[in-house]
Structures are given as C-alpha cells and as structure tokens.
C-alpha cells in the first residue's frame, strides 16, 4: 500500500513536468493549430543557460528567473522572425521549420556544452520537504513550483485584460482584430509564455534525468500524449492529462511488479511503461478522439 502511494506521488511529480510541457504545446496549438516539435529542445536550451549561469557563480533561483525571462524573450523573437513570415504557409512547411529548429537547438547545445551528461542541482532543501520518506524532497519541490506556475498562468488568462485578449486572439482572430486586439502581438506573447513554461519544466526535470542535449525527447512525447489525452484544445485538460500520464506510467510499472511477484511471470516492468502508457492513451483517443476534456472541433468544408 505504502509503495502504491509512493508510486502515485512520484507519478504526480513527473506528471507536473509533463503538464507544463503539455500546456506549452497547447498554448501554441490553440492559436496556430501547430504542434511545436521544438518545444522540448527549447526547454533543454533554457536549462543549459541556467546551468551555465550557475557555473559562473549565479545562485540557483536568480539563474532560474533569468533563464525564464531569456526564454520568454527568445520565444517572442522566434515567433516574430521565423514563424511570422510563415503565417500563410502550408502546414508541412511549418512542420519542417519546427523540426529544423529542433535540430538547430540540439546541435548548438551539443557544440557549446558537449553531449556529455552533466549533473544538474536541485534547489530544494532535503530536510524541509521530506514527506515521511514517501517522496523525495526534489519531487515535492517540483510539484510545488509547477503548481505555482500553473496557477499564475490560470489567473493571468482568466482574470487579466491581457489574458482575455490573448484568449480572444486564439479563439477567433478575425473577431479579435475587429475588437482592436493586436493579434500578431498576442501570438508572439503566446510563444514567449510557452517558452518560459517549457524552461521551468526543463529546469525542474534536469536534476532527475540529468542535463544533456537529448534530455527532453521522451518528456516531449509524454507531454504530447498528456495534451492529447486531456484535449489538445483545452489548456486545463492538457494539464490534467499531463498529470494523468505521469501517474499512469508509474502505475503500469507498479502493477507489472506486483503481478511478477505473485505469479512469477514477467509481463511489464519499468522498461515497458512508456509503451503501455502510450497504448492506453491511444485507446482512450480511439474512444474519444478530442480527448477527455477537449471540445469536438468541427471543420467546415
């Protein structure tokens, strides 16, 4: 029983990270209908920036804040310079650009910092956050930080005029323009926020998966699955979906272990948890194509 709770708790911590990346994907998707395949590599790059700052003697949290701000600006600039000219381009060209971005970030990071795996510090004090040994201090910290970030974003989008204008621009750009909203600026802002949230996820997960240019690959996949599971058109749903995928993967491994112990037959374990979790997600999507909490999108032809 205790082990089960432990697995769920650490699943929530992983899920928090998937939730952040899923939210970043959704923020760009709702306003452009594109999946930013480079989201993970952008987060990885932000994480290296913070690591570099820490190497230069900057404290963890100042480095964290600077990396988030730089990522925000970077996201805005990428939208303005690289994606804006592609507004009317066919989907495949945009996909190619995203994949190009992914490759560029990956190889630039590799060139500057090498592909060697690096340790990345955890900012959370061991003693203060130890929940009866159930779950590590870092994992508790991750959940707290992501919850703070997600709540701040919720308040921003739900209660501030700028957040309202961004939602309007995403939902109905033509009407938003007619209400005087500067839709292009809102798009750029959305990219900035997505990059910033991704950066938070990267810096939180780097202590767990270690820092290296390919560190976000699997995470992007999980986050994508979470976003689809919750509903790619619904930010709240995507966040929940991220958490669900995190818990799901741990439960798969846990019950695989239980079965092995009781019957001696090995069916699934840690190695297969990604596969099984994704299969479950696919099954859900077959039954509910728009995700658990997504709106059914009707395309007029």
């Amino acid at each position: 029983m205790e082990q089960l709770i432990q697995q769920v708790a650490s699943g929530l911590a992983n899920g928090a990270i998937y939730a952040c990346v899923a939210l970043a994907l959704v923020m760009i998707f709702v306003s452009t209908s594109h999946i930013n395949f480079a989201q993970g590599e952008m987060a990885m790059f932000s994480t290296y920036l913070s690591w570099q700052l820490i190497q230069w003697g900057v404290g963890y949290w100042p480095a964290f804040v600077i990396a988030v701000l730089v990522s925000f600006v970077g996201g805005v600039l990428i939208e303005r310079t690289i994606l804006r000219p592609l507004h009317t381009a066919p989907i495949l060209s945009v996909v190619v650009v995203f994949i190009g971005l992914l490759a560029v970030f990956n190889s630039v990071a590799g060139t500057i910092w090498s592909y060697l795996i690096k340790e990345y510090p955890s900012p959370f004090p061991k003693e203060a956050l130890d929940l009866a040994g159930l779950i590590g201090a870092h994992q508790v910290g991750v959940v707290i930080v992501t919850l703070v970030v997600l709540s701040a974003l919720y308040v921003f989008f739900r209660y501030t005029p700028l957040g309202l204008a961004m939602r309007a621009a995403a939902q109905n750009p033509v009407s938003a323009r007619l209400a005087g909203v500067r839709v292009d600026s809102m798009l750029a802002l959305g990219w900035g926020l997505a990059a910033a949230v991704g950066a938070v996820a990267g810096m939180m997960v780097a202590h767990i998966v270690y820092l290296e240019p390919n560190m976000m690959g699997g995470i992007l996949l999980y986050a994508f699955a979470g976003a689809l599971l919750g509903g790619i058109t619904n930010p709240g749903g995507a966040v929940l979906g991220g958490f669900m995928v995190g818990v799901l993967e741990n439960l798969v491994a846990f019950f695989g272990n239980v079965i092995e112990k009781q019957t001696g037959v090995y069916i699934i374990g840690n190695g297969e948890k990604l596969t099984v979790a994704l299969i479950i997600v696919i099954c859900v999507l077959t039954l509910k194509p728009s995700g658990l909490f997504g709106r059914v999108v009707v395309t007029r032809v």
Partner: protein
Amino acid sequence: MTAFLEVSGLKAFYGQTQALYDVGFALEKGGITTLLGANGAGKTTTLRAICNMVRAEGRISFDGQPIVGRPTESVVRLGVAHVPEGRGTFTTMTVDENLRIAAYTRGRSAKADVQQDLDMVFEYFPRLKERMQQQAGTLSGGEQQMLAVSRALMLRPRLMLLDEPSFGLAPLIVQEIFRILRRINEESKVSMLLVEQNAALALDLADHAYVLETGRVVMAGPSADVKNDENVRKSYLGY
C-alpha cells in the same frame, strides 16, 4: 470639405478574383447610410475593405485620414466598429468576457470606466444584463446580434459598420434592434454604414442609400428618392 467617411474608386480582391470594381460613396458625420444590393453584389466586401480585411485599392478616408492599408486593429482603434456578417461571437466565452475584450483595447485600465460603458450597453439591451455569465455561444440568434452590437459599442466608436443586423431574426426582434440602432445614432452620436437585405427597413432608418450591383455603385441618393425609384421598388422592395 470632405465627408466623415469617403470612399472612391474602391476595388477589392479575394486572391485572384475581383469582387469590387468601382465603389464610391460618402457618409456625413452623424448620418446613417445604407448599402443595398442583391446577394453577391459586394456589400460585405465593401465593409471588409474599409477595415482592411480584404486586399483593396482605391481611396478610403475616415475623418480626413487615408486608411487603406492600415491593419484592421488600427482602423478599429481610430473609432470604426465593424459588426460582421455572422456576428463574430466568441462562442466559448461568457457574455461578460465578450464585452470586456473591446474595453481592454481602448486601453482603459480604470474599472469604473468599463462599468460605465457596460451600463450604457445595458440601457440599450437590458436583456444582456441577465445573461452576463452565460456562454455566448448558447445565446439565441437575436441575443447574439445584440451582443455583437454591444461589443461594437464597448469600443466607443464614432462609426459603426453593420452587416445585415436583421439576418435570421424574427420580425419583432428586427424591429427592436432597428429602434435601438436609431437611439444609438441619436444619443451616442455614432455614424452608421448599414448593409441590409431588408431594404424597406434600411431605407426607413438611413438618410442616404447606395445600390451596388456586381461590385459597382449603380444608384445613389437620399433614402426617400431611392425608395421611390421604380427599379429599386421592383428589385428590393417587392411592389
């Protein structure tokens, strides 16, 4: 002296297809002008061209400033509020949010100011007040049209472009909306450019009328004259 809104030699294009060939008209400050014409004549396109929602060539000046080529949102910020064909509701947002988007655009942070605008809107459309927390997509057609006009009002416009406000509505609701449009014109001093299929109603409300045919103005004059024109009577008024 130039008119408040002055359009001349206006051409407009959807990709390669030309929709307007030579449209010209003028609207006096405080006046109501209507554009009539059969389906596909180019009425909607003319309104879109004013807000730079289609590619356009020619001259459009608003309050003395040329506005061809200005981004839509910047034309809007000059005081031109467009109530589009199809109403342009933000369907998954509440009525309240639909109204506040426009208030944000005017750059007013003061809460009291927004409240004042909302009160003005409720005075014209009391029904919206009860529906503030309802999802806008679930409003009836008539209520959505009221919301669309209200959204435009929240911009405190000097000119309203109205694209078939009577579309799909029951006659009683249409009359209600037209009565309110007249009040808005008189009380809030908003000039109006009205596109309508319901020519009888439009000619009653407007002081000037222009008739479009395949992207050209074929007739113009004070509403009373246009109403008495035999061709207009046959084609648009049905008697």
